[in-house]
C-alpha cells in the first residue's frame, strides 16, 4: 500500500522536479522596473542621509563659530572691569607725574586735548618728532604700520602733515574705555593697546622712545591689527579626484537614464597646477592659476564577440577579439590597437542588444559578460577665478572658497582595461573644447614658516554646460577633490 502511494509521489517528483515553463513575456521588465524603483528609493534615502549629515555639519560648524565668538566676549569682560579700575587709578597718578616730567617741554603747559580715535587711520613715522620732546617717535621701519586705530592730535603735536603720538595722547588712551572686541570706534581702543599703556604704568622715568620701540612690533601683531597689508601668494597644488557625471535631458526615458547610471561608474583621477592669490588686505582673497585635471567615467557593460553578426559573447582575449560598448557621452571612435572593431550598442532595457557600426549590424542576445572595463577620460586645462574668504583667522586658518573656471579640452581618450593591462582604443567624438565649471570648497592653511604655508582643500567641481555636443544625454561631469599644496607669500 505504502509502496503504491510512494509511487504516486515519485511520479510527480520525477516528472515535475526539473520541470520548466517559460515565464510570461514582460516578466523580466516587471522585475527590472521594481528593481529600479528600489534603487531609486535607496538612492533617495542615501541623498537624504548625506543631506542630514551636511546640515548637521553646517549646524555644528555654525555653533562652534558662534561659541568661539561668544567665548571671546566672555573672556574679556572681567578684564575690562578690572582694567577700567586700574585705568582710573593709574590715570590719576600719571596725571601728576606727567605734568612734572613734561614741564620743560613745549607742550607741557597745554591742557589735555581731546583725542578722537578713528578707525583705519595710520600712525606713521614722524619727522617732526625730533623737534618735539613730548612726541613719541617711531623707528623708520615702522612706517605705514596699521594699528587699527589712530589718534588725531592737536596742531601742536602735528608737523608737516604727519601725525604724532604725544605723551598726553598716551595718557588719554589709557583713560579711554577698552573695546570689548578688536573692532574700535571713536570711543574705545583695542584691549591689547589699552593694556600696553596701562601695563607700562608710565611715570616720569619712562623713556618715550623706548616705549615707541615696544609699541611698534605690537602694532604689527595680527591680534591688534584689524587690517593686513595687501599681499600676493603663489603656490602649487595636487589633488586626487573622485570623478563622475550627471546625465539628463528633457524628455529622456527614466529607464534609459537608470540604465546608464547602472553601467557607468565613477573614476578616480587627479588634478594639479599652480595658483596665484591676491589679497587687498582684508579677509577676502582672489585666486587664479592654471590646473591640469583629468575627469571621466568607467563603463562596466562591455561585450566581446568573435565577429559582427555573432550572437555569442565571451571574455575578451579568449578568441573574442571584437568589443562593443555603449555610453552616455557619445560615439567612441576606434583607432584599433589589437581590437578589430569597436561598436556602440543601441539598447533598451529589457530588450535584446543591437550592435551597430557604419557598415553592418546584427542582432545579438545578451550572453557572457566580458571581463573588460572601458575607461573614458577627458583632460582639461582649468583656469579658475576663485574668491576665498577667511572664516577663521587662527593658527590654522579656515577659508570658504567658491568661483568659476574655464576649462579647455586638451585630451580625450578611451582605454580598455583588462586587469593590469590597458589598451588605448580610441576617442569620444564631439566633445566641446571649452566648458565652464563652478567650484565650492573649504580650505585650511597652516603657516610652517613666516611666508610659507601648507594648504588642504576639500572641494567640489561641477560642469555647468554639457561637455558633449551630441549624444542622447547632456553630460555634466563633476568631481570631488582633496587638494594639498604649498604657498609662498610675498
Amino acid at each position, binding site marked *: 500500500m505504502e509502496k503504491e*502511494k510512494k*509511487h504516486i*509521489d515519485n511520479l510527480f517528483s520525477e516528472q515535475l522536479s526539473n520541470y520548466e515553463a517559460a515565464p*510570461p513575456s514582460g516578466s523580466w521588465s516587471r522585475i527590472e522596473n521594481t*528593481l529600479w524603483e528600489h*534603487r531609486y528609493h535607496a538612492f533617495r534615502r542615501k541623498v537624504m542621509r548625506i543631506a542630514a549629515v551636511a546640515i548637521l555639519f553646517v549646524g555644528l560648524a555654525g555653533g562652534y563659530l558662534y561659541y568661539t565668538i561668544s567665548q571671546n566676549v566672555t573672556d574679556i569682560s572681567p578684564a575690562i572691569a578690572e582694567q577700567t579700575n586700574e585705568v582710573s587709578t593709574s590715570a590719576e597718578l600719571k596725571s601728576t607725574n606727567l605734568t612734572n616730567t613734561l614741564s620743560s617741554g613745549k607742550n607741557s603747559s597745554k591742557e589735555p586735548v581731546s583725542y578722537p580715535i578713528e578707525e583705519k587711520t595710520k600712525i606713521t613715522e614722524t619727522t617732526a618728532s625730533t623737534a618735539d620732546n613730548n612726541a613719541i617717535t617711531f623707528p623708520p621701519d615702522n612706517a605705514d604700520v596699521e594699528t587699527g586705530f589712530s589718534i588725531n592730535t592737536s596742531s601742536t603735536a602735528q608737523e608737516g602733515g604727519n601725525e604724532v603720538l604725544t605723551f598726553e595722547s598716551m595718557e588719554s588712551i589709557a583713560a579711554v574705555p577698552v573695546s570689548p572686541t578688536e573692532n574700535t570706534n571713536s570711543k574705545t581702543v583695542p584691549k591689547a593697546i589699552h593694556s600696553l599703556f596701562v601695563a607700562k604704568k608710565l611715570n616720569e622715568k619712562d623713556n618715550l622712545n623706548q616705549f615707541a620701540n615696544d609699541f611698534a612690533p605690537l602694532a604689527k601683531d595680527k591680534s591688534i591689527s584689524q587690517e593686513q597689508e595687501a599681499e600676493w601668494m603663489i603656490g602649487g597644488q595636487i589633488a586626487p579626484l573622485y570623478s563622475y557625471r550627471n546625465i539628463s535631458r528633457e524628455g529622456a526615458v527614466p529607464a534609459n537614464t537608470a540604465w546608464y547610471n*547602472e553601467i557607468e561608474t565613477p573614476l578616480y583621477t587627479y588634478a594639479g597646477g599652480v595658483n596665484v592669490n591676491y589679497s587687498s588686505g582684508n579677509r577676502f582673497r582672489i585666486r587664479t592659476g592654471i590646473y591640469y585635471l583629468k575627469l571621466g567615467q568607467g563603463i562596466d557593460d562591455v561585450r566581446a564577440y568573435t565577429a559582427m553578426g555573432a550572437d555569442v559573447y565571451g571574455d575578451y582575449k579568449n578568441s573574442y577579439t571584437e568589443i562593443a560598448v555603449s555610453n552616455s557621452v557619445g560615439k567612441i571612435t576606434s583607432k584599433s590597437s589589437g581590437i578589430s572593431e569597436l561598436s556602440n550598442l543601441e539598447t533598451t532595457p*529589457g530588450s535584446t542588444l543591437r550592435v551597430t557600426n557604419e557598415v553592418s549590424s546584427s542582432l545579438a542576445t545578451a550572453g557572457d559578460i566580458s571581463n573588460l572595463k572601458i575607461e573614458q577620460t577627458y583632460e582639461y586645462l582649468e583656469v579658475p577665478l576663485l574668491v576665498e574668504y577667511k572664516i577663521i583667522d587662527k593658527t590654522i586658518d579656515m577659508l570658504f572658497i567658491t568661483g568659476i573656471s574655464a576649462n579647455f579640452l586638451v585630451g580625450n581618450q578611451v582605454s580598455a582595461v583588462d586587469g593590469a593591462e590597458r589598451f588605448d582604443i580610441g576617442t569620444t567624438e564631439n566633445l566641446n573644447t571649452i566648458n565652464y565649471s563652478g567650484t565650492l570648497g573649504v580650505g585650511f592653511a597652516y603657516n610652517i614658516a613666516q611666508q610659507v604655508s601648507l594648504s588642504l582643500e576639500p572641494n567640489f567641481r561641477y560642469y555647468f554646460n554639457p561637455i558633449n555636443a551630441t549624444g542622447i544625454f547632456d553630460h555634466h561631469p563633476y568631481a570631488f577633490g582633496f587638494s594639498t599644496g604649498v604657498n609662498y607669500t610675498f
Partner: protein
Amino acid sequence: MENLEKIIKGCLAGKRISQEALYKEFSSKMYAVCLRYSGSEDEAADNLHDGFIKIFQNIKQYKFKGSFEGWIRRVMVNVCLEKFRKPENKFTVSSSEWTETDAVFNNVADFVSANELMEMIQKLPPRYKLVFNLYAIEGYTHQEIAVQLDITEGTSKSNLSRARTILQEKLNEIYFSDKEGHLPVWKKKKSI
C-alpha cells in the same frame, strides 16, 4: 559553473546585466515551481516576480556553499508559502475529510505528461497542494511542513493523503478515458 559564479558576483555588486543573466538562467525552472504552488498563471507570475526581487535583495546571504539552484528554489517556495500564510489566504480544510485510501497505482507514468501532472496539482485545494508539493517534491517532513504552514503534523498527513487520493482519481480518469484496453488496477473509493 564558473560563469554562474561570475553572474552571482555581478548580482552581489548590483549589476543589472548580471541580474538579467541570472533571471534568464533560472526563470523557467522557478516559474515551474511557482506554477506548482499557485492556482493560476497570474498568481505564479506574481510569485515569480516577488521571488526574484527577494533573491536579488538577499543574494548576499548565499555563501557559495551548496547548490545555488537549491537556494533560490527555497526562496521561491518560501515566497509562495508567505502568500498562503496571509490571513486572506488561509484555507480551512477539515481533517474529517481525510479518508485512508487503498488505491492501487500502476504504470500510469508512461501515459501522462508533465503538463498534465502540473495541471492536476494546480487544481488541488490550496492546502492540499502546498502539503503535497512540500512533501512529495521538495522533500520536507511532516514536522517541517507543520511548522511552515502552522498546522499540526496530523493535519499535514491527512492533507497529503487527501491530495494523493485526489490526484490518483484524476490520473484514473485520464487513464480510463485515454487508454482503454490497458486497464490498471484501481480501487477507487470515492470520486471528487
